[in-house]
């Protein structure tokens, strides 16, 4: 390449303890380039970005910014060198105004040393309008839609003078129009000559926005290629997993046939569940052995709905029946007693990182295996069985949970409810942030649960997840059920169009 890269990495390696996270990775980012990064979880993308952003100061290899060798000790150093990062988990201060968020930590002051509110508002307004965002900069940032908050954070990084911007999974929480707007902004930044590293699990997004794409696998960079019509999803998946994508062609890539099992008894029924503004008048039935999908964009109310189904919030109106019996779920413990089980969208809200695997699994069935005294041997035996049948990659049941990869942790979370199967299993975003292989495993587990006669409710913002698991699909929009798909062929496009 003729132009000098703004950022160049040569032979980067990084190990955590004895685990080699990155091996000899080369990467170059040209000015005005959007560089897509793909790879399964644990492939090393995040580690590399953290090195670039100064989060991990210790690493092997050479990093150059505009030809000068650098070594960042903190993210502050990276920012000073013109490299900014927008993390997946936004760091917006929700109670501060948009303008304050943009200028966080760098408020303009007047000659008396007081915050110059006027300059701050004007500056924030100018900056955000350059991003195509016409919003009230005095509004609390927490009230904005997630996609706008993300742009505000991007604005903050830009304001600090970043030439190269790393975006980690920026589209995972966005609706298609929001994604479109983000891409609009990225193209504009690119035209200004700024460079962008774009990390995503959404291969369609990567292919649409990137000029160049690099694929990571097992801590190595497998390939860097200019995006062209010859590069498609199959091509990427093939290189991500190192196998023929054709074998893994999932049924949802075309259209799938929904079919409701009609002879099974109704395991769960919701009637007019209302908890405004999160969700309104939600009614549905799920039969034993059936998987009901609930699809909708981020913020459509499915998170709150899942909480209500496990007694964590009490809907203001409406009723639930479990196995035909009216059920009042006054809390999580009551919900469990009534036969409900729940896997929330965040693993942190589900698992005990510091505890061994077996305790993570036995926690929900302790009362059935021990009246007073705990029986660790029994717990370990149960866990060992799950490790085997679910293919959890771990040395043994006493391994600390935090040492497992995300996908394996998710399997542990599911294993928790398999020892004593519940009547109804509520899964919220069961495959979020997981690699292709682990997703397949989770789909398989859910299928076997259905065969045992468990009613499964899958709530997700990812159409693939819902399509790969559900027998019937509800579409939630702004807290209301707007569409039901049953007994028909349906494709991802149908689902996206309905939401």
């Amino acid at each position, binding site marked *: 390449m003729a132009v000098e890269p703004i950022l160049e990495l040569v032979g980067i390696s990084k190990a*955590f*303890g*004895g*685990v080699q996270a990155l091996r000899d990775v080369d990467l170059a980012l040209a000015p005005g380039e959007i560089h897509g990064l793909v790879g399964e979880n644990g492939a090393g993308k995040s580690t590399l970005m953290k090195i670039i952003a100064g989060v991990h100061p210790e690493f092997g290899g050479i990093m150059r910014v505009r030809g000068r060798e650098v070594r960042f000790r903190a993210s502050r150093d990276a920012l000073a060198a013109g490299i900014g990062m927008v993390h997946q988990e936004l760091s917006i201060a929700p109670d501060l105004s948009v303008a304050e968020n943009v200028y966080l930590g760098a408020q303009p002051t007047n000659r008396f040393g007081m915050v110059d509110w006027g300059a701050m508002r004007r500056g924030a307004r100018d900056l955000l309008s350059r991003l195509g965002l016409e919003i009230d900069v005095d509004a609390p940032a927490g009230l904005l839609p997630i996609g706008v908050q993300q742009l505000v954070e991007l604005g903050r990084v830009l304001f600090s003078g970043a030439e190269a911007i790393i975006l980690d999974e920026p589209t995972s929480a966005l609706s298609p129009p929001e994604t479109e707007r983000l891409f609009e902004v990225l193209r504009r930044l690119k035209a200004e000559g700024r460079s962008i590293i774009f990390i995503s699990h959404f291969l369609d997004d990567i292919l649409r926005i990137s000029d160049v794409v690099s694929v990571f696998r097992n801590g190595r960079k497998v390939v860097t290629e200019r995006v062209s019509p010859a590069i498609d999803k199959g091509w990427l998946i093939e290189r991500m997993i190192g196998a023929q994508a054709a074998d893994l062609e999932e049924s949802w890539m075309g259209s799938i046939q929904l079919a409701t099992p009609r002879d099974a008894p109704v395991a769960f029924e919701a009637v007019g569940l209302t908890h405004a503004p999160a969700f309104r008048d939600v009614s549905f039935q799920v039969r034993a052995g059936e998987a009901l999908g609930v699809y909708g964009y981020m913020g459509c109310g499915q998170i709150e709905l899942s909480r209500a189904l*496990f007694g*964590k919030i009490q809907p203001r109106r409406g009723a639930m029946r479990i196995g035909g019996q009216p059920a009042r779920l006054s*809390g*999580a*413990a009551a*919900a*469990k*007693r009534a036969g409900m*089980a*729940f*896997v*929330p969208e965040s*693993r*942190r*809200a*589900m*698992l*005990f*990182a*510091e*505890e061994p695997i077996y*305790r993570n699994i036995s*926690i*929900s069935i*302790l*009362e059935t295996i*021990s*009246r*007073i*005294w*705990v029986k660790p041997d029994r717990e370990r035996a149960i866990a060992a069985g799950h490790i085997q049948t679910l293919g959890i*990659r*771990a*040395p043994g049941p006493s391994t600390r*949970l*935090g*040492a497992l990869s995300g996908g394996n*942790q998710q399997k542990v979370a599911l294993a*928790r409810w398999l020892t004593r199967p519940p009547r109804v299993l509520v899964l919220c975003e069961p495959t979020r942030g997981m690699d292709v292989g682990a997703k397949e495993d989770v789909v398989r587990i859910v299928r076997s649960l259905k065969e045992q006669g468990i009613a499964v409710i899958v709530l997700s913002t990812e159409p693939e997840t819902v399509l790969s698991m559900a027998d019937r699909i509800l579409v939630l929009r702004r807290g209301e059920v707007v569409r039901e798909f049953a007994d028909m062929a349906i494709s991802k496009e149908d689902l996206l169009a309905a939401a």
Partner: protein
Amino acid sequence: MDAASATQSRPPLANRAGRWLSHRLRNIAPLLTLLFLILFFSIASPSFTSMGNVWNILQQVSVTAIIAVGLTFVILTAEIDLSVAAVANATGIVVAFFTLQDASVAIANLPLPGPIAILLALAACALLGLITAVGVTRIGIPSFIMTLAMMQIGAGVSALLVRGQIAYSVPPLITTLGSRSFLGVPWIVIVAALFLLVAHLVLTYTRFGRYVYMVGGNREAAENSGVNAGFVVGAALVISAVCSGVAGMLGVAYFGSAQQNEFDSYLLDAIAAVVVGGTSLFGGRGGIGNTILGLFVLGVLNNGLDHVNIDSFLKILIRGLILLAALVINVYAEKLRTGDRGAV
């Protein structure tokens, strides 16, 4: 994972030793402190190492020990109980209130048979604990604030019952347990040891104990597993109040009197014992073993300072500095645990 890859992912030896040390810092630090203090005072004062002084130390930490047992449960669930000393004081006064006092004591009290007085006192501390539990788990008041209020309530109960007077009599059973010996061993030491033993068994080997650790480790995850986390926290608070109550009754017998504010120093001592011992202030880590270590560190320190003839006002400052050091290590240990590894 097969054996080969398990071996491969094992860090080098030196690194592993470092990790092992850093993960056990919360156990090692108090142990080293204790050994250092024992060594220091043995050299500094010949009277420190006598057998009689060992019994002294054990007796001196017993009341703190019984309070610290309950507090260990609370801190393990990642909550705090600031009312322990006030509840101990109130319970000690309640049991004296229901005991026939000498004619010279001008308290309008209500003499009842000893066993009934004891039961009423136990009921009183359990009730105070229950109120705390309801405030924290039902109403949702942070335990720090709720128990601060309960501290004042306990002090109020104490004040109202004795009205500035001092009561001396407690039921015979309490007198025995608090101030007599059995085969040369002070009863109060036996009671403290029993409390520690039972609490250790409960925390380590029972389902409830497991819940205490899991709720303290990650309350939301425990709830999402169907554990009634509110009940666990509430139970820990009630246990704490009852332990404090027992300590208060025995303490009154041990001191030989029941009056206002006589347990004030026990709040800091009990918290210090638990935290110096290495139980995590963030919950879920530590246990009775740590509390025992902490009790010995405090006991040896307090007792040893008396033996080396040090300015008694300086003693107060030294105790504060020791507590600060323990807090630093406690927080540092937590960072070491979580810093070098991926989160969930």
